[in-house]
């Protein structure tokens, strides 16, 4: 098996899905000739033509709205939002339309579509090229929200998303695009949307993370292993709907829970995981449920020292693990 980067896995998934199903198409800003500003779609324009890899006008709302219309007709659009920070103009179409179409029509209409968006900080992108947006969508019944943390999952989850009959928000940890490498089979496979995954077995505490923070969490867990602390790591992967069972099983075993994300703490996705644990695993808890998250400022600042201040990293995560383990 070849070892490839996260972004190559994403491109491979799209390439294979375009080849597999002629209803699949890509639409977004600069996805065509340019191959995407992160080059996630490089080569696809030449291979599949401008009708299937469409350079949209600079307007996210209609990228999604047009995608929805095409999906209603039976197509399988993959909409690219250039940066997750620019998804807000499309908020109405995602939340009012894509998410509610199935329920509101009592199942008569469905919206099989994927909305891909690179998210997250640590790349010098400042306030508007670094945001995490998962909490806005992991609250909206009718949507599925997926965040891969490694190339294998990235490819498998994206293929599953393309084939899913529902709107799937697929958030890509862009800091890891070229940093995170892993083995990926060349042929067809999917990773099911829904289940979280225990990516490291442990007994002393459970750490829940996703995307880039999952990558860092594994590094921190390695460090803690050297210190004799046995950390279990859960990659949440599908943020919505929540895989409560996997979340609860782990904390029931370890008795301690730490949730890590780079989005702002307050009102962030971690609150939901903490609440589920506090409600359903109360009697198993040996310590307060901890969250390590971005601070409550609008987003990641540009200047490097400020960015470092904002972002969780392996050291900060290791420190939080230590403290919780010692509780």
């Amino acid at each position: 098996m070849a070892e490839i980067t996260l972004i190559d896995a994403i491109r491979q998934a799209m390439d294979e899905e375009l080849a597999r199903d002629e209803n699949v198409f890509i639409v977004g800003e600069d996805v065509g000739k340019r191959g995407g500003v992160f080059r996630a779609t490089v080569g696809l324009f030449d291979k599949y033509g401008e009708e299937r890899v469409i350079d949209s006008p600079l307007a996210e709302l209609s990228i999604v709205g047009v995608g929805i219309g095409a999906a209603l007709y039976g197509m399988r659009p993959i909409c690219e939002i250039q940066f997750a920070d620019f998804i807000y103009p499309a908020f109405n179409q995602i939340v009012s339309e894509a998410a509610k179409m199935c329920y509101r029509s009592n199942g008569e209409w469905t919206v099989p579509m994927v909305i891909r968006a690179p998210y997250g900080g640590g790349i010098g992108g400042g306030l508007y090229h670094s945001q995490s947006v998962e909490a806005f969508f992991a609250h909206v019944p009718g949507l599925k929200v997926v965040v891969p943390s490694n190339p294998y999952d990235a490819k498998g989850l994206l293929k599953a998303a393309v084939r899913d009959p529902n709107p799937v928000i697929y958030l890509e940890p862009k800091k890891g695009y070229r940093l995170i490498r892993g083995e990926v089979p060349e042929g067809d496979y999917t990773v099911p949307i829904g289940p979280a995954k225990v990516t490291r077995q442990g007994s002393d505490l459970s750490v829940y993370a996703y995307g880039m923070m999952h990558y860092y969490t594994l590094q921190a867990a390695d460090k803690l292993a050297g210190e004799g602390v046995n950390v279990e790591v859960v990659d949440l992967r599908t943020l919505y709907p929540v895989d409560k069972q996997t979340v609860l099983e782990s904390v029931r075993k370890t008795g301690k829970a730490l949730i890590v994300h780079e989005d702002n703490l307050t009102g962030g996705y971690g609150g939901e995981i903490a609440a589920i644990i506090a409600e359903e695993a109360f009697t198993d808890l040996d310590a307060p449920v901890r969250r390590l998250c971005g601070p409550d400022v609008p987003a990641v600042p540009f200047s490097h020292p400020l960015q470092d201040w904002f972002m969780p990293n392996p050291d900060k995560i290791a420190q939080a693990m230590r403290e919780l383990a010692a509780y």
Partner: protein
Amino acid sequence: MELSNDTQLEMYWMMLLSRRLDERAWMLHRQGKIAFHISGIGQEAAQVGAAFALRRGEDWVTPYYRDLALMICLGYTPRDFLLALTGKQGEPTSGARQMPSHWSMRKANAVSHSAPVATQCSHAAGIGLAIKMRKEDKVVLATLGEGSTSQGEWYEAVNWAAIHHLPVIFMVENNQYAISVPADKQMAVASSADKACGMGLRGISVDGTDVYSVYRTVAEAVADARAGKGPTLVEARAYRLTPHSSDDDDRTYRSREEVDEHKKKDPLIVGRRILEEAGLLDQAKIDEMEARVKEMVDDAVKFAEQAPYPDVADAMFPVYAEEVRRG
């Protein structure tokens, strides 16, 4: 584009049926039997004229809440409407989840719409894109109010259709008000059709009280769209002869004189005059039609009265497509 005598009479029938049904809804509301009604009275000619310009059942429609007459032309029945007004079990568009007049009819390719205005327009563009991708012979009609053309949503959708020469007809039903706000507070142009020039598509304004004029105008736009000549923006000039909805009191913002003046151009009066002048309609024929309508409407009211309410056991689903039970 010549209309047979039978078709002309059928168009009048559709307007009449829609009108009487609409009036009955107002009466049921006054009687306290239903909680809400939003009316299409005054816009029947625009809707019926447009509907007849389509290949009904084959072409696609993204309607809006005033389009009772349009939906009737597509096969929506008085019983369907009464189930919606009363929120009863079996309501076909949404399982009584949506407020009345939020249409959907899959078998007629009429897409489910929400309440946030103008969102259906980018769906129409997306449907048009899918039609074009599949090289099919269909068109899509999107309707909306003139106030709703103030939404950026609408502009983006029309822009898409114009750039990609999509087979979409955008029909603005200009009834001169958006709830209480007159059209001159929505736009600095004289007619919604004037907006077309700024987006690079054809724009045409037509007397929306004359069902046959509307038919001819839309039929031409449809022919253009089918011929690959791209979208047209049609404005049908009408007047909202009722308050905005059963929750509104329009005396707070417009005079009775103004309303009365427009009642003279009621589309049913205009339509009747045209047919009488052509010798196609007389009092006897009208009496017969009215009797038939009354029977249908009475039947629908009784049917809905006797229908049970939806079962709350069904309320949890289907949020996701995989929860849809077919058949």
